């Protein structure tokens, strides 16, 4: 088993854990954290393929990872802002109870 | 003669290689690392002990009193006494506290503080890890301190400690931005993130004057902004709001006693040394001698001389300035420090592209002084400072 496959397996595992968390957890913040994990798993893939890929000098994998880290941070900030606004409005972060669009 | 100087300068490096030489070649690199780690831990822990005494004696002398002079000659065994006291004191953990996180917080804080020394070049080729992205490593490790502060504040299940932790984190984050921007100026000029190459850029001399970055207008402004942000980053003197005894008892380390409490102090002081060490590396030419005729003194002595000078300035400022209020602290960060550092980056750009000579100096100096005065007037004009009227006093 070459090391590239091991890295890909680890990132697939992290991705599925993040997905499981996002799908099953009750609290909105945990869903956001699950999404963060999925994004990170993708980053790991980029770096693994850059490292073991055909043309490391092109740095495309590293560039992709850097931009994806930046965007994931922005997404986390806005997502948590929304969770806060929803909490202020409906006093709960439980996803099951956020089922009414009443203003 | 020259070889004697060279030997004195490289004495520790040679010592390290000789000791590591006893091991088989495979383990030598690990042995090198371990030896330098031991050296760093010993030297900076000793410096921590010395600084606690210097601080208390300095503050005493500023306030017209002696400062500790009972334990040992002129009080220099006081850290031993403090150490024994903090070791023998009972280590209370509140019942409601979250045991694991409560224990991990000081450990993480001290680890983060010591990690920051890996990239500081203490002397000529005396650096633990010559990372290509050294400065970035320093700031990455610096953020671990905020996490440790939060863990300490939250895990003690105490309103005051949580309040103190939140204040400390808010302060650290809002002063991390100017800190990073102030160091970007030097990275632009040096063209590399590696601390070793930044110092090598500053070791040249023209005439007797060194090529330190602090001697350029943007370097001087950057150095001041960096030191202000560093004081705030390590929760010291005018910015020590999170542990303001008068307001919230002792901030995030209320529920700590005994050795863990001492670890927090160790972490805070190490943080102070680390940021001032980075300031020395970036602006004051790391281990470079201040004048060309002084280069015969070994390089590591210059680093620690500058470090002691910075510590003295920290103590001096601590003895002078009153504590800032939370809103003043935040306004200062976002309305003065951030714009000034951005202008400083612009000034460094102008400096880089303008031809040399006096005009360049004038342009950059004006480019920095005018916004500084305007911003400071902006900060002050918000306040109404007319005479206070007392209803009952007079």
């Amino acid at each position, binding site marked *: 088993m070459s090391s590239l496959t091991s890295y890909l397996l680890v990132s697939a595992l992290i991705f599925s854990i993040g997905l499981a968390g996002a799908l099953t957890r009750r609290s909105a913040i945990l869903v956001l954290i699950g999404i963060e994990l999925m994004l990170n798993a993708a980053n790991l893939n980029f770096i693994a393929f850059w490292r073991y890929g055909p043309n490391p000098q092109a740095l495309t994998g590293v560039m992709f990872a850097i931009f994806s880290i930046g965007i994931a941070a922005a997404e986390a900030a806005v997502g948590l802002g929304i969770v806060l606004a929803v909490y202020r409005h409906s006093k709960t972060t439980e996803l099951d109870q956020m089922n009414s669009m009443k203003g | 003669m020259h070889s004697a100087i060279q030997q004195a300068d490289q004495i520790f490096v040679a010592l390290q290689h000789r000791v590591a030489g006893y091991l088989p070649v495979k383990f030598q690199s690990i042995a090198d690392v371990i030896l330098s780690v031991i050296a760093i831990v010993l030297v900076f822990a000793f410096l921590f002990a010395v600084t606690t005494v210097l601080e208390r004696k300095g503050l005493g*002398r500023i306030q*017209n*009193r*002696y400062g500790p002079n009972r334990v040992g000659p002129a009080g220099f065994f006081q850290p031993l006494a403090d150490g024994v006291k903090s070791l023998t004191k009972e280590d209370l953990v509140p019942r409601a506290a979250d045991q694991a996180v409560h224990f991990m917080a000081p450990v993480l804080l001290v680890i983060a503080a010591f990690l920051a020394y890996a990239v500081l070049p203490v002397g000529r080729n005396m650096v633990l890890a010559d990372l290509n992205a050294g400065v970035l490593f320093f700031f990455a490790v610096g953020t671990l301190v905020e996490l440790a502060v939060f863990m300490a504040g939250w895990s003690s299940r105490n309103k005051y400690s949580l309040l103190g932790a939140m204040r400390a984190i808010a302060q650290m984050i809002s002063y991390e931005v100017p800190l990073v921007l102030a160091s970007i100026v030097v990275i632009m000029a040096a063209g590399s993130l590696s601390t070793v190459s930044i110092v090598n850029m500053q070791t040249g001399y023209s005439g007797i004057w060194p090529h330190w970055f602090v001697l350029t207008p943007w370097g001087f402004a950057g150095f001041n902004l960096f030191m202000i942000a560093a004081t705030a980053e390590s929760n010291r003197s005018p910015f020590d709001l999170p542990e303001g005894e008068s307001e919230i008892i002792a901030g995030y380390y209320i529920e700590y006693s005994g050795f863990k409490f001492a670890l927090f102090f160790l972490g805070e002081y190490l943080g102070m040394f680390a940021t001032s060490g980075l300031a020395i590396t970036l602006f004051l030419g790391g281990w470079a001698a201040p004048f060309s005729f002084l280069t015969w003194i070994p390089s590591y002595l210059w680093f620690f001389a500058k470090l002691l000078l910075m510590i003295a300035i920290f103590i*001096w400022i601590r*003895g*002078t*300035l009153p504590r800032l209020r939370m809103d003043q602290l935040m306004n200062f960060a976002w309305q003065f420090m951030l714009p000034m550092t951005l202008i400083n980056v612009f000034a460094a750009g102008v400096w880089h592209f303008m031809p040399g000579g006096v005009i360049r100096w004038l342009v950059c100096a004006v480019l920095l002084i005018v916004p500084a005065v305007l911003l*400071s007037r902006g900060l002050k004009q918000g306040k109404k400072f007319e005479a206070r009227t007392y209803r009952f006093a007079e």
Partner: protein
Amino acid sequence: MFGEGILKGLAETARNFLGSYVSKKRLTTVQYPEERLPQIEAYRNFPFLVYDGEDWQQGLRCVSCFICEKECPPKCIFIEKSTDKKPDAVGKPQFYPTVFNIDVSVCMSCQICVEVCPFDAIKMDTDFELSTDNRFSGLLWDKKHLAKSNEHYHKIHPTEAAVVDAQLAAERAKVAAKAKAAAEAKPAAAPATPPPVPAATEK
């Protein structure tokens, strides 16, 4: 200018810091066990019993009249009267306390006992290094521990001691004069009856 106040502050602390090395009089601390502040005369700590002459048993001014015990707000004085008499400071035979205890841990050094004492027998001491290893019996002072000489009183409260001594001397003179007058009137009236008054011991 923005940093003006800061620079002035820094200059002030620097002047203080360097000044403390130049002239020692800037430093106000007194190294306590080695150096001591001059004693303030009006300072008072816990009471003590004054005695005249060398032998504290005989010279004790206290005549155990129990006034201070009654007046003491926290009730920390305990006196037991003797059965026989001894001459007091003025020479008149009076009772004297066999037991005179003050519980120093209770005493609040309010000086009421000194004010009410008609015989100037109890005064306030200025000794403050009183730590003991036992907080019960160690702080219950008996008569022997309380008795201190008049010279000690003069040393700690000179002016006050002088006034008290003057009054005592005047009283002794009055008593002596009365005794002398009685002695002369006695041989004129009835030389046969033996003089009831024992000889006054002259001080």
